[in-house]
């Protein structure tokens, strides 16, 4: 076993362990952190496969942005853990059976039938980022644009589904506040002094 293989198995074991832990731990914050660990290790695996750009993006985007946001959400929402765990034990045996069946079938297929040659290693001067950059806007401009549209739809959907103007809210519109004049707020009323009787 050379050093590369050692690294591969090292990261793989951590990855699988972290993934299992993520769905079994009780604390949602811990689960999120395990997911972060999963991302890190898979980023490491990608880098070993010479996909260093993707590995770095995974860390930057998912770990740096998405997961941090996710942690905020988890911490801000008061999730009832007890209710979420209901049924976990009840369905555990069936789940395990199916999971084992699935894993064994996949293992069987992959071990017995996938005998693919690894592609030639690119040299040290090969720049993954540059290669991606060259084809992303030329050969893959069409999928790239579609992806952009998907993001646009996601934004539209998110806004359409969450932005509410409830009639009863006491939100303040700063523009209106600034534009206010004396006439709109104060009314001079002439009143006669009252009689004392």
């Amino acid at each position: 076993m050379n050093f590369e293989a050692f690294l591969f198995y090292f990261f793989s074991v951590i990855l699988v362990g972290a993934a299992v832990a993520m769905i079994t731990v009780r604390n949602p914050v811990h689960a999120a952190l395990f997911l972060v660990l999963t991302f890190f290790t898979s980023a490491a695996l990608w880098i070993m496969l010479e996909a260093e750009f993707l590995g770095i993006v995974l860390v930057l985007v998912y770990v740096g942005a998405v997961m941090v946001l996710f942690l905020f959400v988890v911490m801000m929402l008061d999730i009832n853990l007890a209710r979420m765990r209901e049924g976990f034990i009840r369905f555990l045996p069936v789940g395990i059976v199916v999971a084992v069946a699935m894993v064994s079938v996949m293992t069987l297929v992959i071990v017995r039938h996938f005998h693919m040659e690894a592609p030639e290693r690119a040299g040290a001067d090969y720049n993954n980022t540059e290669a991606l950059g060259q084809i992303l806007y030329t050969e893959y401009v069409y999928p790239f644009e579609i992806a952009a549209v998907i993001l646009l739809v996601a934004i539209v959907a998110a806004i359409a589904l969450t932005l509410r103007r409830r009639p009863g809210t006491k939100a303040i519109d700063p523009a209106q506040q600034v534009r206010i004049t004396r006439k709109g707020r104060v009314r001079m009323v002439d009143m006669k002094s009252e009689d004392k009787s």
Partner: protein
Amino acid sequence: MTFEIPDFMPVIPELFVLGMACAILVIDLFVPQARRDITYGLSQFTLIGAAVLTIALASPETRFTFNDTFIADGLSDLLKVAVYLITAVVFLYSRPYLQDRDIYKGEYYVLGLFGVLGMMIMISSYSFLTLYLGLELLSLSLYAMVAFNRDSARASEAAMKYFILGAIASGMLLYGMSILYGITGSLDIKEVSDYLITSSAGLNVPLVFALSFVIVGLAFKLGAVPFHMWVPDVYHGAPTSVTLFIGTAPKLAGLAIIMRLLVDGLGPLHHDWQGMLTILAVLSLAVGNVVAIAQTNIKRMLAYSTISHVGFILMGILAGTHEGYAAALFYTLVYAIVAAGGFGMIILLSRRGFEAENLDDFRGLNERSPWFAFIMLLIMFSMAGVPPTVGFYAKLAVLQAVVQVDMIWLAIFAVIFSIVGAFYYLRAVKIMYFDKPEDESPLPKALDMNVVLSINGLLVIVLGIFPGLLMSLATGAISW
């Protein structure tokens, strides 16, 4: 490296829809609620314009662009035009429904147009990547539309289920595609097909392994058993106008990606996917027809009916012959027309504060409006496959295709379950004609809706008497 500017001519309809959708998104911000019809009109204009462009650019030869990731051929032209027209009808039917429920908003139409764009991309995709992205674009729009009525808990629940299950299915589809990429070294459908023809020896097991995942993803999108569970809940939970959309046009796109992916790309594996689709078709026919009988909610009933129709569509595809594909295409087009009419009727009978969702709401419709009872009768007959409605020819064409490849048992099975299915369609007819109405209120008088719905219903019988019109289109689109 050299870079050639791709040919933009074939994608002009897509660019037009995208541009208009973005423009409408912006314009809608400045349109007051009372003038929302502007957004509606622009959306309809977009669809009609896209139809005009597609027809103008249509030509019998196959056109590729963007490094062969985009294809425009007879199939794509026919399906795209059908998608525009169906969507235009959907938008038209939706308007009174949305107005009555105070959700008449521009986002509905914008999301609908993005969904249309997604379907167009799917229909014209010739690479795993664009196919998948188109599917996601459509799905994302649909998820958002299901949840569109934010005040309805049932709609939110349906959207959540749809979203999560859809994500699982997309994941499986993507996983299957990535294995295929690993084996064949290409995302391009043509290259994958060529690779499989020349050198697939000894790779059967991994290919079928990948194929299984792909099939699951596709079956989910179409709603074939056992990947159908979302269908009743989403159809039931979503606002009827959205159900109308989900139940019609996306089936056309679904058929397109099956044609591209399974027939064009994985054609050499026909023997394997034929078996898989047979299982799905048999289950869909059985579950769809049998469970529909027990439904009292007509939206749920139509959902199960959809599942059984998907079984028929799959039968046409699994035959693996040109006749079979043409029959499946014909069936899907017919299904979209008929389903639009069926959901349109539900919208017609609904009004502010009242959803005509239950079968009982159709009771005695004949006394309230003999004409629309007749239209509903035509639609139900067509779904049941009673001649001379077009549904009969659709079923006949599929059965012929299946018999031609010597799968007579499957044809017999399908006929038996069609008869079972006829029960609940005819029950709806019986309720309309022989029961006393519980609700005597007159039907709403929206002229455009009434006219289009009438045309929609009559189309069912006109195409039934002249099936050659549509059949020649379908056959023409398939014979590449």
